[in-house]
Every structure is written in C-alpha cells, then in structure tokens.
C-alpha cells in the first residue's frame, strides 16, 4: 500500500471553510497553513458509533456501558479510542477470547450467546458520505454475533444495507467455519444469499471476508493484529511472531511485520512470504548463538530471497490484470527481536518500530528510519518534515524487498533499553494516524505492557477510527529490563 497511499486532501479549510485546491499548502481565501493541520480523511469511520469517548485506560477495566454509547456523538471526538472488546478475535489457538473480556459484555447483553463476539458493527464502506456515522444502531450492533446460529439475526439486520462485510467483523467467517452448526454460509452483506464455493454470495455477489482480512496472534511475550482496514479490498500486510531460546537458555522473542506494495503484483503473497522467511531464519539462527543483529540482517536477506522467488512463479491462471503484471511482487519488512537485554530492529521500506517506555514521562522514540521519498527529502535537508509528508510522493518508498529492488540495503540497529517499555512494530496503516513517537505513545493504552494483544487491537482501532485507509498491522513486544531467568551473565553483554 505504501506507494498508493496519499495524503488525503482537506475538504475545506479549517479556518474559513473555503474548499482548497488540490496541492495547496495554504488556504487561498484566508491563508491558513493547511499543512499544519492533520488531514481529515474524507470517509469518517462509521465504526465509532459503539465507542464511548473513554480514555483508553478505562478500557477493559470496568463494565462497559453499551447503551450509553448510543447517546454519544463520537464524531466530535478527534481520535476516539477503541475499547479492546470492540476489536474481537480469537486467541492464538483460534478459541474465543479470554473470559474476562466477555463478562462485561454478557452483563449488558443477556441474550447474547456465550462466546459470540461483542462486535460493534455498522454499515461500512457504503460510500464516503457523511450520513452513516451519526446514528447509533444498538440493535445492529448486537446482531453480528453469529451469522447462522441466531435466527433473529436476519430480522435485526434488515434495517441497514451493509454493502460488504465490516473488516473488523471478519473473524465471523472464520468463527462460523469452525462452528459446529451445519449448513452453508449466509452472505454477510445481504444476509439472504448462500455463499458459493468461490467465496461470493450467490444472491448479491459480494465477496465474503477472507481469513487474512483480520488476523490475530498472541504468545507469552508478543502479540500481533492485522486488519484489512476500511478502504482496501484485501489485506496485503502480513506478520509473524514467535519465541525461541538463545544458547544460554534465555528467551528470545521475534516479531516481523510486512506490508505488500500494492502497485506490484501479488503483494499479499510477497508480504506473507517475507514474514515467514524472516521468522524462520531467525528461529534457526538465534538458538545457534548468532549475534541477534547479524541474525536480523540474515533474516532480511532470507526474506528478500523469498520475495524474489515469487517473481518466477506465474500468477493464477485466471488473473490477467495487465497493469499488475508489470512489477515483481514486493513488500516492506520491519522486525524486532528481544534477546536478553538487547532490542534489535531491522527494516527495509517504511514500516516502523516505536519505543514507548512504560513510564510515559520518559521520552518515547521511533527506532527506524523510513526508506521513503519523504524521509530522503528530510534527510537531505530539502524539505522539513511537515512539507515532505504533505507531498503526494511522501509515501513512495525507496527501498523494498522484491526482484525489482535496485539494491537490497537491510538496515539493522541494536538498542539496550534501560527501562521497561513497549516495542511497537507496525506498518504505515497505523503510523499514518500516529506519525510522531509522541502520537504513537498517546495511542498506546497504558495497560498494553500487561495485555499486548488488547493493546494491539486498540492500536488497530485507532487506525480504523482515523479512516483505515490502508491495511493495518501492529505487533507489540513488552520489553522487561530484568533479564528473565538468564542469570547475571547477560548484564555484561
């Protein structure tokens, strides 16, 4: 997505309401500095209707006041934060979420079947018009639990024309697939047609959610969430998280996040191949005692080879989409490894790693330097950051993995954090809505250190609230300073 993402144009000047011309840096009527205000996405997210404007800290702590959300006009809130339960999903074993997340839900919705998803759903993608976001639809919010088991679902849902599935409810399909109830799947869009073997509704033709539309994974010391977003038709991001042990027995945690370049062919395959290859490489080299930074470098090279290999494979026989065939599959990659007291990051492209200390009074930081046009302009001193990122070329990446990359330049860096904190590994689908380290820190919920999966969901929700213009993928690695059971030997590394 990196190359196609553009700064959304302002629909009107915040100072005088005059519509600016495309590319204007200052308002033609009043001279307001347009580059200074964050661009407001044209499509206001419709999902905010069930989100109370509560601080992220409140999330999950107390019983959720669902009906209260109905009174809230969330469009007044600049960046409403999701409660964790608004981004449901399965845990790494594909089971429903932990019980404590369900309980508040069940109190409010006694009729809800146990284990169903407390998803706020809304008509999404029915165009950028301002209409859909206002009215809360509590009944609609309650019907997305189960596509088939709940016989009332159809009548509840008849009150809105859902053109296509809300990506945030994508796991319904996965859940339905594993559910014991028999029978063919019902289309999530029109709710009357059956889903054909090719994944489209036999009645309205709409594509059904795919497994990759929303993915979550949680391990002991790392969690990751990936979502299709609201504007793209498929999820071209991918991630891999794993944990292993160093030769001395101390744990090592790996998170890899990749963003497929959508102007190339098969970006989804490229990102999946790169994430898997890098992960495999690290899992092989770290236990052998390879220095983690060297291991990260090798992992990026391995990922690059995996993506290059895709260029030789022919695309699916049915795919004759000319303009997508001109480029070899390509993606960005960013990875983080926690090994002992070291934090290693590695990247190619514009996916990023942020450091958010647990003590929020301490400075927060971005640990990667984009391979992007904007970053190059800033580095060369030709533009300031605001100017560079306002340019439509800002997101054109200058480094990527793929057969047509000029030259592979894996960047790696090693850090030795002196205090606990959170490592945020993400694609531009997230950082577009929290660009600076401070913004990112503000978006990370306070309890993310203890509940990384929940934190990752909140961050994905932050991006979707902002417009969800791109696929969103984030992995969170809570970094503890005290070496876990590795003995004092590690301190001198």
């Amino acid at each position, binding site marked *: 997505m990196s190359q*196609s993402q553009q700064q959304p144009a302002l629909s009107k000047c915040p100072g005088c309401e005059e519509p600016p011309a495309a590319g204007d840096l200052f308002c033609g009527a009043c001279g307001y500095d347009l580059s200074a205000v964050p661009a407001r996405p044209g499509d206001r997210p419709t999902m905010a209707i069930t989100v109370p404007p509560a601080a992220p800290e409140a999330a999950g702590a107390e019983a959720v006041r669902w009906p209260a959300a109905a009174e809230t006009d969330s469009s007044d809130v600049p960046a409403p934060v999701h409660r964790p339960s608004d981004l449901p999903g399965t845990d790494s074993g594909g089971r429903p979420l932990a019980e404590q997340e369900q309980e508040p839900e069940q109190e409010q919705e006694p009729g809800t079947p146990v284990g169903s998803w407390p998803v706020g759903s809304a008509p999404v993608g029915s165009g950028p018009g301002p209409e859909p976001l206002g009215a809360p639809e509590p009944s609609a919010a309650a019907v997305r639990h189960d596509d088939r088991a709940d016989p009332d679902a159809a009548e509840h849902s008849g009150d809105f024309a859902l*053109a*296509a599935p809300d990506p945030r409810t994508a796991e319904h399909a996965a859940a339905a697939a594993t559910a014991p109830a028999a029978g063919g799947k019902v289309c999530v869009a*029109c709710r009357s047609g059956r889903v054909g073997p090719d994944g*489209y509704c036999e*009645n309205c033709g709409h594509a059904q959610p795919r497994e990759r539309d929303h993915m979550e994974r949680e391990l002991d010391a790392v969690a990751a969430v990936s979502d299709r977003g609201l504007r793209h038709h498929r999820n071209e991001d991918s991630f891999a998280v794993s944990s292993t042990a160093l030769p001395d027995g101390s744990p090592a945690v790996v998170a890899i996040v990749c963003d497929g370049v959508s102007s190339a062919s098969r970006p989804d395959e490229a990102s999946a191949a790169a994430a898997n290859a890098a992960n495999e490489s690290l899992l092989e080299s770290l236990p052998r005692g390879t220095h983690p930074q060297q291991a990260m470098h090798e992992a990026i090279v391995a990922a690059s080879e995996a993506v290059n290999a895709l260029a030789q494979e022919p695309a699916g026989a*049915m795919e004759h989409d000319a303009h997508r065939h001109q480029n070899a599959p390509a993606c960005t990659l960013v990875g983080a490894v926690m090994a002992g007291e070291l934090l290693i990051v590695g990247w190619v492209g514009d996916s990023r790693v942020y450091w958010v200390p647990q003590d929020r009074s301490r400075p927060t930081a971005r640990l990667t330097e984009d391979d992007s046009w904007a970053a190059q302009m800033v580095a060369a001193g030709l533009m300031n950051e605001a100017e560079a990122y306002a340019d439509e070329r800002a997101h054109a990446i200058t480094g990527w993995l793929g057969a047509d990359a000029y030259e592979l330049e894996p960047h790696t860096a090693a850090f030795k954090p002196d205090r606990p904190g959170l490592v945020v590994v993400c694609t531009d689908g997230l950082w577009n809505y929290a660009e600076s380290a401070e913004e990112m820190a503000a978006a990370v919920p306070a309890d993310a250190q203890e509940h990384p999966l929940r934190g990752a969901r909140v961050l994905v929700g932050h991006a979707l609230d902002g417009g969800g213009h791109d696929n969103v993928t984030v992995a969170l690695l809570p970094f503890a300073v005290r070496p876990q059971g590795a003995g004092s030997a590690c301190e001198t590394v």
Partner: protein
Amino acid sequence: MANFSKSNVPQFSVEVYQNEFLPEGGREVNAIVTVTSTGGGTTGGIPLADAVPSSAPGAGQGPGAAVVLMVDCSGSMDYPPTKMRNARDATAAAIDTLREGTRFAVVAGTHVAKDVYPGDGRLAVADARTKAQAKEALRKLSAGGGTAIGTWLRLADRLLNAADVSIRHGILLTDGRNEHESPEDLRAALDSCAGRFTCDARGVGTDWEVKEVTGIAAALLGTADIVADPSGLAAGFTRMMENAMGKEVADVALRLWTPVGVEIRFVKQVAPTVADLTARRTEANARAGDYPTGSWGDESRDYHVCVLVPEAGIGQEMLAARVSLILPDPSGAGTPQTLSQGLVRAVWTDDMVASTSINPQVAHYTGQAELAQVIQQGLDARKSGDFDGATAKLGRAVQLASASGNQDTAKLLSKVVDVVDAATGTVRLKAKVAEADEMTLETRSTKTVRVKK
C-alpha cells in the same frame, strides 16, 4: 475446470481479461471472456464419428454429425453458365470432404426446395458409394426458377432433425436476392430453425443481398462470406466442410450469472467476428441467462461482457458476473453440464492509477466492434448518397483498422477509399468502386483480429 479426459468432448477453458478496479461511484464493468476448446480424449486431432458426450443417452448408436448442402438452382445461376458448373464442382468437393459415417443430403433450392440426394426426406450415410451417387445426382442439377431461401432452410431442418446426431449443420449457397418470399417468411423460417442447426452461408457473384446472407449466418450461428469469383467456390466449400467436420460438440451456451441488482448492458461475440448476442438471451433461472454459441471444434472465441453493478464503497469487492460454458442435458430435462467458468469481478478502489486504466483486451475489442459498426454505417451512407458522412465513417474505420493491426479489413477498406493518412483517418472516397469489393468489405466488416498478447 471440469475434466473430460474420459470422453471425446473438447475441453473448454474460460479466461477473463478485465480491469476489475472501479473508482468511487463506478458502475460499469467490462470483461473480455476468452473461451478456448481443445479436442478432448485421444483422437489426436482426428475427429471421431461418435463425438458425443458420454452422458448422452444412446451414445455410440448414432453418428456424430449431419450436414445438408443447400445449392441455389435459381434461373440466375445460369448467368454466366460457369456459375452453375462451379457450384456443382464446389458441392462435389465438399462432399469429398465428408467424413465417413456422416449423414448428409443435398438440397436444390429455387422458389421451392427439393432434396435431390438421397431424396425421400432421408439422409445418406457418407461412404465411397453414397458420395459417388451424390456427385452423380449433382450433374442433373440445372438452373431455373426463383429464390425462396426460407423453404430451403425449413427442408434442411426437417432432414437434419430426423437424424439422431449431435452436430447438425447446413451449408447454403445463393447467388441472388430472396425474391420469391417475403422477408417475414424468411425471418419466420430463421426463427424456427435457430438453435436446431447451425448454418454457414455463402453468396456467389454480386447480385445477392449482403444483409440477407449475413442475417442467415448470424441467426444460425454460422459464418457468412462472399465468393465473388465462382471459380473460388470449391476451395471455399472444402474449407467450410472441413470446419464443420471439426465440430465436436453442439448447442453450447454461454451462461451469464449476475447477482441481484446487476444490469446487463451487452453480451457480444467479438472474435473471430462481431455478433451481438444481447437479445438472444434465454432465461435459465432467476439469476442466469443463456446465450447460444452453436457448435465448437478446436477453436477459441472471445466475448465482451458489459454489466452495470450497484455502487459500493471504496475497498469493497463483489462478483459482477460468473461466465460459464454449459452443455444442455441431452434428454432436455436434467441440469446442464457446466464445461468451464470464469469470474468477472468488481473492486472499488481510490487508487486512480488502477481504476482509470483500461484493460488492453477490452480496449482492443471495443475498437474492433466500433470498426465493424463504422464500416456498416459508412457503406450505408455511401449508398444513400451521403458522401461526407461516408467519408467520415470510413475514415474512422481506416484509423481503427490501422491502429489495431486489422490488416485484412484495412486491405478491403483501401479498395473503397483512398487513404491519405491512416493515423488520423483522413481518406477520400474512391470515385469508382467494384461492386464485389464493396460487398466483400460489407460482408467481412465484422471480422476481427485478436489482441496481440
């Protein structure tokens, strides 16, 4: 894709060429569907007599194909007398090309139709003896009488449908206008024959009506062409018969499934020739309709499907149409067999590069369809004396033919107009145009070239 390796039915493959990306608010989805059938089984390219689907009842008892040759024997065939002789020779050459075991008959057409061989409303089974007898019967043909093509077609229909075969084909030769019956009679005959057999039509000389002959071929899903010089008839007939003998499966239909709310703008065959099928739809069920494609041998055809989908938001994806090739159940009752299918999709994106690009196949065939149309319009304008209109239309045709590399059509156009600049479509009408050249251009205007891949 279904696997038919155990039968002799050709394998069909469907490929869809489209730009599925629509801008916000975009509704029109265009796709070129390429259907290719390749000979099935182990015939090694030699067509088998019993090339019927294994599921057909009575497979193996009936031969695969029946052909009726309809030869114009009206009085005009004697002017010049070589025309009748050439027609006889051509028919004889076609009979020689018949595969052993094929059912066949010869019909002499005037203002009435008469089956001159084998006669008595039957079909002969092709072998050395019957072929010789048929050629003997041809010698007795003489010119005299009028022209009522509808009667020929109705007789051919009766003969062909008396036989238990899967491929039914007619070959029709005429040299004059259909003067001895009303256009409505011909229309009614075509309607009653459509879907019952396929028919290739040839006009010999220059006294026939192009629209009549192309109309017969279009209605009966065959080819139309001009044989300006009667001496070329034999070669043409042989080729037509070889083509007919290569057909292995009949009554294939293009089934178009569309979801609720999708409107079909048109369905056209665009290669090898342009033929609008939109009006020939028969509803198969609530969501699907069938368009006839006739019989298939080893060949490839392209179809242009254009549908209007309901608007949807950015990031959404839907199936705009599912295109499948189906073979009706021979008993007429069961569910038809799906030979192959392809998907036409719609994906809304805010990526302008993706949504504004036009698929090269769609662009090419849109141009080829326009080419056929402007030639027709240009020639009509020329006939009606509107020389400015004709110049403009034929100029556009020259431009399109040259840009798309349609050499054959360009060559035919250059006999009707003097090309000043092909790139801009600047032409002058030729003052004197041979009638044969004009008719050839009109008859062959629907021929397209395939996009360079």
